[in-house]
């Protein structure tokens, strides 16, 4: 039997309708995955008890392997493991090969994984190793890249380097030797990034219990117009409201010029728009 073929126009219309339906269907379908986990994170975490810190030790290739293994552990480590990590890091301070391997990892990560470079600098700074001093010094002196493409008014390459240099300068401040503090003072006065200058001030003061002597020392180096950073409150982990609020009150009393003006009205509020009241509770952790 031979059927009559529908006209091309009808056929085209049908094809378009199918496409539209497919498009609608695709937009409504939820995400899919291969091999998702059906286990709640609380169960997953219970199945994986915290691992002890691997040893940061060895020489040559063994030191390099130890650093890679330690960084993998350290990145995933949790707040309750903080002191364990600090002990392991401090124990490696005298190992030149470990320090060198760590510096190599930081250098390699600088342009490929910012979070890993930050992690490496945090380990190196915490080590307070005399072998790390030269690397940290050189690191904060890396010149800012020339101005490039801006993202929301910010040069992302410059911010990337500045946040890493902020971590490096915190290591120098924590080292707290005459030589390392000379570099911190240089950063307070001369570093071209405000982000690094701010971290140099914050961490130097904290390493000296925010004493008036430490503030007087920094006052000799701090840039004109940036003296306010000497009084800036830091919310430390564990600060209760009473403690933090006192610090904030003192800051605002000392610097009434920080009071912001009243907010400005816009040209018209938005209409409520589409009602969307999805309010199902998230799955139990």
């Amino acid at each position: 039997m031979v059927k009559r073929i529908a006209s091309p126009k009808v056929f085209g219309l049908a094809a378009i309708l199918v496409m539209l339906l497919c498009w609608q269907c695709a937009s409504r379908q939820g995400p899919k995955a291969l091999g998702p986990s059906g286990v709640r994170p609380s169960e997953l975490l219970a199945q994986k008890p915290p691992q002890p810190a691997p040893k940061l030790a060895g020489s040559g290739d063994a030191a390099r392997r130890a650093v890679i293994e330690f960084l993998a552990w350290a990145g995933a480590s949790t707040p309750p493991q903080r002191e364990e990590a600090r002990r392991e890091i401090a124990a490696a301070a005298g190992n030149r090969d470990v320090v060198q391997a760590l510096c190599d990892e930081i250098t390699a990560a600088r342009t490929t994984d910012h979070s890993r470079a930050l992690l490496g600098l945090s380990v190196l700074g915490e080590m307070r190793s005399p072998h790390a001093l030269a690397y940290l010094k050189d690191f904060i002196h890396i010149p800012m890249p020339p101005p490039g493409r801006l993202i929301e008014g910010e040069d992302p390459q410059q911010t990337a380097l500045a946040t890493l240099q902020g971590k490096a300068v915190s290591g120098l401040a924590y080292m707290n030797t005459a030589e390392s503090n000379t570099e911190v003072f240089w950063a307070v006065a001369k570093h071209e990034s405000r982000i690094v200058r701010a971290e140099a001030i914050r961490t130097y003061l904290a390493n000296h219990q925010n004493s008036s002597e430490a503030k007087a020392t920094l006052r000799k180096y701090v840039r004109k117009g940036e003296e306010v950073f000497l009084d800036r409150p830091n919310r430390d982990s564990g600060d209760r409201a009473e403690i933090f609020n006192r610090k904030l009150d003192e800051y605002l009393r000392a610097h009434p010029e920080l009071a912001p003006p009243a907010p400005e009205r816009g040209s018209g509020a938005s209409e409520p728009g589409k009602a969307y009241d999805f309010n199902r509770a998230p799955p139990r952790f």
Partner: protein
Amino acid sequence: MKTGVILTGEILALAMLGTLTYGLCLQTGASQADRDLWNTHGCWQEYFLWQYQAYDMNGNDWSNRGWNDACNVNLEYPKHWNAAYLVTYGLVDNNDQSFHGTIDYRAAAEAASSNFHNHFIHQISDDNNFFGQFIPPDKLITDCPLYDPAATNSNPASRAGDFMHESWHAWMLKYNWNNGSAGGHRPCNNNPDGSCTLGACSFNGCDYFYFHGVSKYVFGAMWENDGTANRFHSPNQVQVEFLCDVADQPQSWVPNTVRLRATADANARSAARFINGPGYSCGSFRPW
């Protein structure tokens, strides 16, 4: 007439095909911070099947970006829900120590209309000139610099911080506040030495910091304002306060890389983005 209908349909269909997105962000990997957080949930299906609805996301906006491969952390959609996971579960909500609670940060980031903002959807764009954008009336868009593995802000804390920032533009719109003409912020002034500053702000896109103590907003009340500078938030401030809460008030399982990046992002932003800055800083002074 029939030809006209077909032609219109064809144009419509082509236009819809044109709206399909193709992954142009770098999909070659994920930062260690993303991977470390990811390993705490192991790609929890029940969560992402909730998350896409809570954030009102749809497959056409996120096709070729992991919508159909939601366990591949190298792709944009999995990175998006990884950040949302941090918002949903990652904070301890200590009334005596946190700036705000999960209830605030969730309401800000999620799509549903509430006291925090009118409804919006979460989309993605390949525009490399933004971290994120709020396009009125209802689009919260995140961009490649939050997903490209080497980028500074390509980590769960900074990405979630951007959810807060962009959602606060939606808050400003809902309550009719004007925060400035530079993408919803105050523009800086060009100086003879080539720098661009406004007060203590050294970027083009500055906010005021409306300082408030801890426990001054009960959890759930971050949206409140009294029309004065005494009770108000700017987008960068909400972002800093969220990042500080990740840094100082995380759940016991939140990985170190996530907390380190939250601290660095909060303190860099707080030092450089505020006209009446610096805002408060947070996190340990020790490198580790």
